[in-house]
């Protein structure tokens, strides 16, 4: 059984882990996985899908780089009677064009982070600085929206600065540095919300170099739950992270197997859990078990 | 003034460059149906005046009148539309385009809006018909020789010139046959009532074809005279503002130095470029190289200097050591020097200052780690600017801003600065004014007196005769004769060039030579 997997790229540790896990899962099930890395380009993903169809694979896993623009190629897959499963992001195409989507709810992730912060600060006033993901990318947009939902109704919490850190540590650090300068040495800042852990890790270093204590002087909450953030949590420098599991392929393969065996149609949306981790959940242990996964 | 209303009149044309007043209120009138020579030393301002006439430069002051009507060409295109065709000093054509495209650029014949290559080529062949060279106009211009390009440039200019034709040193890289052909064309145009401006440093050509001459010096007008009733010496005085004693010899020099050869080339050649040549040169000896265009003189020079490394034969120094001439670098290390024919592309580093251009070769030989001290550089530069009388405001001026002839002198200075044991000069006097011409010949004699050996390529035979101890003659990229001392006369060289095999036709026909450079355009 051959399954094609069109991956966005390997722009972050999390995605590398997702790729690794997908390969693992495929191996366990004896699936011949055809892997295509799209280098962050939608056109390459479409090319990949087309080639998969041309090769006549049995099914396709698609981790869409962006929600829009898949109708045409999904149509072709449908005509070729190749089931498509979406990983970690949905697309806005007619539901009948794909079998199911195994994703977490990006907005929900943001909301979880927001609610945690709201709970953590109670009703003291709190100025939040936000490190956005790559401008225009759906995680950036949704996690921003979600967080704002999460803190809605808590007028003591205000987002005072929001800049993009491109999901990278370097930019995360650089932007945080300028935030600290702009908010007189960080005294105005009570919390940092980063759209992914990598930016948070960078920002934490910036905070330390500015002579403040991340985790105390400035609360740090972020999303993804990559190993390094747990290290920081263990050292008390990060406060909370929301897990986005890299194992999307497992459920996807199960759904496909069932579908191919006796045509059981899975639900349109298999939502993965967005688990909240804080310093209470023995971060070091989690770090140990996660660090093998190729993050 | 004259009764006839002049065709083109320039009044008080002024042009200043940063640090140089190139033209200072120059007047110039061109009549219908005359060939008018524009003369002057290198850097006198001839080319600049031309460029002001054709709108290539914006003049700072002065008026232009064509047929008595004031004109002000903003760019060369405007000038062309006014019927002024020009050949600039450096052949200004595009080597990446075909000959046909070069000839008709901007005026390609069109069929229903689309340029038709066929018609273009046909038109091009027609344009070239009068010039006795039938080449494949579909090939890139870059694959043809300097001479051929020169003729193409002329043909284009002629076709564009409804009223005025300007030729800036058109004969510099032509040989006698082609010059005659060109003059034929010019006379034809003159009889059709065009006005022709002719710039050249060959005075006999001036006397041969021109009706009047206008002389510039240091950007100022010296005067305009009828050629008839003007003698050579008088003209030279006008140009230089001083007497010039030109003594020319009837035959080559017999005072050839004796002793063992300082350099010996045995069966030295490169397949496809120059057939094996055997040549011995003593210290202080001048060996001339004669031949028609494309006879392989430059190839010989380039092979000796390692530009296109030899693939057969050996080169030995007097102490019997083998010289590995595998690259210019190696040649320089062996104490060779080479002034190429095409100074623009092969020698001049335009944006570097005169000083840097002069020390370049010396520096290259010393290696980057041992820079020539700045003071020494300045001294060298000033010394050669004085010795070769390079016309410039100062040594820091970018060499690219010098006039053609002065650039030539800078390159010469570059090699003299390395005081080589063996110096190769390819057309050293091309584009050099009479004064500098004499200078350089004197210099050549000085150098060999000082024990340097020279290999000099020149198309000017009487010049060759006057300084060579020996002359080797090339034809079809092979040596066909070697003349010695008294045996060297213009006649003997000409006959050697034209000797048997001449039956093949009037000199190697361009198209016959064409394949020699297959692919060079790519």
């Amino acid at each position, binding site marked *: 059984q051959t399954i094609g997997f069109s*991956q966005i*790229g*390997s722009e972050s540790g999390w995605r*590398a882990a997702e790729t690794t896990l997908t390969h693992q899962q495929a191996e366990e099930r004896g699936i011949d996985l*055809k*892997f*295509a*890395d799209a*280098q*962050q*380009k*939608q*056109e*390459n993903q*479409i*090319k*990949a899908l*087309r*080639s*998969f169809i*041309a*090769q006549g694979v049995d099914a396709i896993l698609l981790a869409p780089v*962006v*929600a*829009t*623009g*898949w*109708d*045409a190629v999904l149509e072709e897959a449908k005509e070729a009677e190749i089931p498509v499963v979406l990983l970690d992001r949905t697309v*806005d195409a007619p539901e009948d064009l794909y079998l199911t989507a195994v994703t977490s709810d990006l907005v929900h992730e943001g909301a979880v982070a927001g609610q945690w912060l709201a709970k953590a600060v109670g009703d003291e006033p709190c100025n939040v600085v936000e490190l956005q993901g*790559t401008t*225009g990318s759906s995680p950036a*947009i949704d996690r921003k929206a979600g967080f704002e939902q999460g803190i809605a109704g808590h007028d003591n919490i205000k987002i005072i600065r929001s800049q993009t850190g491109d999901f990278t540590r370097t930019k995360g650090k650089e932007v945080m540095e300028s935030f600290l300068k702009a908010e007189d040495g960080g005294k105005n800042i009570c919390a940092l919300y980063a759209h992914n852990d990598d930016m948070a890790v960078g920002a934490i270093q910036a905070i330390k170099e500015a002579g403040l204590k991340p985790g105390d002087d400035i609360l740090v909450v972020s999303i993804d739950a990559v190993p390094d953030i747990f290290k920081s949590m263990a050292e008390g420098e990060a406060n909370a992270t929301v897990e986005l599991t890299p194992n999307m392929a497992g459920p996807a393969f199960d759904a496909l197997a069932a579908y191919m065996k006796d045509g059981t149609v899975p639900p349109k949306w298999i939502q993965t859990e967005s688990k909240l981790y804080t310093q209470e959940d023995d971060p070091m242990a989690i770090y140990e078990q996660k660090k093998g996964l190729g993050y | 003034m004259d009764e006839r209303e002049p065709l083109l009149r320039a009044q008080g044309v002024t042009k200043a460059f940063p640090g140089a007043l190139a033209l200072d209120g120059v007047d110039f009138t061109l009549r219908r149906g005359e060939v008018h020579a524009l003369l002057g030393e290198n850097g006198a301002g001839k080319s600049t005046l031309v460029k002001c006439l054709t709108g290539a430069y914006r003049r700072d002051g002065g008026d232009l009148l064509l047929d008595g009507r004031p004109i002000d060409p903003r*760019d*060369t295109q405007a000038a062309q539309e006014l019927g002024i065709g020009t050949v*600039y000093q450096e052949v*200004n*054509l*595009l*080597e*990446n*385009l075909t000959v046909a*495209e070069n000839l008709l*650029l*901007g005026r*390609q014949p*069109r069929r229903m809006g*689309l*340029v*038709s290559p066929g018609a273009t080529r046909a038109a091009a062949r027609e344009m070239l018909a009068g010039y006795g060279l039938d080449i494949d106009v579909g*090939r*890139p211009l870059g*694959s043809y020789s300097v001479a051929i390009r020169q003729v193409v440039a002329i043909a284009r200019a002629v076709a564009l010139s409804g009223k005025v034709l300007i030729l800036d040193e058109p004969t510099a890289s032509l040989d006698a046959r082609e010059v005659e052909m060109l003059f034929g064309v010019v006379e034809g145009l003159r009889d059709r009532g065009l006005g022709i401006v002719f710039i050249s440093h060959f005075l006999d050509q001036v006397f041969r074809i021109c009706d009047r001459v206008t002389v510039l010096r240091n950007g100022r007008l010296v005067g305009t005279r009828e050629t008839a009733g003007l003698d050579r010496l008088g003209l030279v005085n006008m140009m230089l503002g001083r007497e010039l004693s030109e003594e020319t010899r009837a035959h080559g020099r017999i005072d050839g130095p004796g002793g063992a050869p300082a350099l010996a080339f045995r069966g030295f050649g490169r397949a496809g470029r120059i057939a094996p040549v055997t040549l011995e040169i003593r210290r202080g000896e001048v060996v001339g190289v004669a031949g028609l265009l494309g006879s392989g003189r430059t190839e010989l020079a380039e092979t000796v200097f390692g*530009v296109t*490394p030899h693939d057969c034969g050996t080169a030995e120094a007097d102490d019997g050591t083998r010289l590995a001439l595998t690259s210019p670098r190696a040649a320089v290390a062996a104490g060779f020097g080479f002034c190429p024919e095409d100074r623009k592309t092969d020698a001049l580093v335009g944006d570097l200052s005169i000083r840097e251009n002069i020390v370049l070769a010396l520096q290259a030989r010393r290696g980057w780690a041992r820079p020539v001290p700045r003071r020494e550089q300045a001294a060298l530069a000033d010394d050669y600017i004085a010795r070769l009388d390079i016309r410039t405001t100062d040594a820091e001026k970018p060499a690219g801003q010098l006039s053609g002839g002065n650039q030539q002198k800078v390159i010469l200075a570059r090699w003299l600065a390395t005081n080589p044991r063996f110096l190769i000069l390819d057309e050293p006097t091309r584009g050099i004014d009479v004064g500098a011409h004499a200078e350089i010949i004197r210099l050549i004699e000085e150098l060999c007196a000082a024990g340097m050996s020279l290999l000099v390529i020149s198309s000017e035979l009487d010049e060759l005769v006057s300084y060579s101890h020996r002359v080797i003659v090339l034809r079809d990229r092979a040596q066909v004769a070697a003349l010695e001392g008294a045996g060297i006369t213009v006649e003997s060289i000409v006959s050697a060039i034209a000797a048997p095999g001449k039956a093949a036709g009037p000199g190697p026909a361009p198209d016959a030579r064409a394949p020699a450079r*297959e*692919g*060079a*355009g*790519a």
Partner: protein
Amino acid sequence: MTSRHLPLAATLLIFLAAYAACYAQFPAMLSTRVVGNLLTDNAFLGIVAVGMTFVILSGGIDLSVGSVIAFSGVFIAVMLRDTGLHPLAVFALLLLLTTAFGAAMGAIIHLLEMPAFIVTLAGMFLARGMAYVLSIDSIPISHEFYTTLQKAYWLMPGKGRLTLIGGLMLLVVLGGVLLAHRTRFGANIYALGGGVQTARLMGVPVGRTTVGIYALSGFLAGLGGIVFSLYTSAGYSLAAVGVELDAIAAVVIGGTLLTGGSGFIAGTLIGVLIMGLIQTYIIFDGTLSSWWTKIVIGILLFAFILLQKGLLWATTGRRWNLAGSG
């Protein structure tokens, strides 16, 4: 066939050889599906590459095309969403915009004598910035006219599709060839590439031509954007990042000298197909990890360029070249 056409021939030869090699490994590669995909998937790239060829032939470069594609997509999507305009009207408007944009860059390059590389780099930032300002999140295009356009394809035997956009690309290439070799404008472009000063002395209208060239590139980038929006039926401000480099690579692989003055539009088409072939091959192989994908693309690029050089040297005999190709 003069020496000028050698690079073209070499490229074509290499492409066919490479395709044959792929076929030997994956017979499915010869299906009309794959051929159709090759055209459809690279339509937008091919179109901008044609524009890029003209720019490079003139000795310039245009780094803005990728961003212009993204801008076009977003612009179209926003217009269709917020105004009642018919797509065709929007297309016209867009092409007007991008052409003007290109012309403006050309004007700056000519009038201020600034290097094309930098001016178009600024253009690249500007265009993508505009896209962001229009909308940072991706907007689907669901206009029935779009669906009809997407449905417009010719089903080749073997279920391969020659889509509208694929055909459009071929048309653009054809137009490009005509423009390059059958018009005075084309000749002037080659002239500029041969040397601006010389061209000026020969009476080429340097200013007009320069502006024209970049306007053309802008127009084709806009067209490429339209095609891309048809291809994805969406507008997305992060789309087509780095496409300019793909286009440049395609042009050069197609045998055009980056230093200007020599090259062929047709060669560019082959260059684009070669790039597409590399992609397709890697996907068919399907065993490469993310990083090996990058490495292999690099190696294949290198291999193609080297093969080309080799063929040229073999045919013309390697000329001693002190100058290098700049």
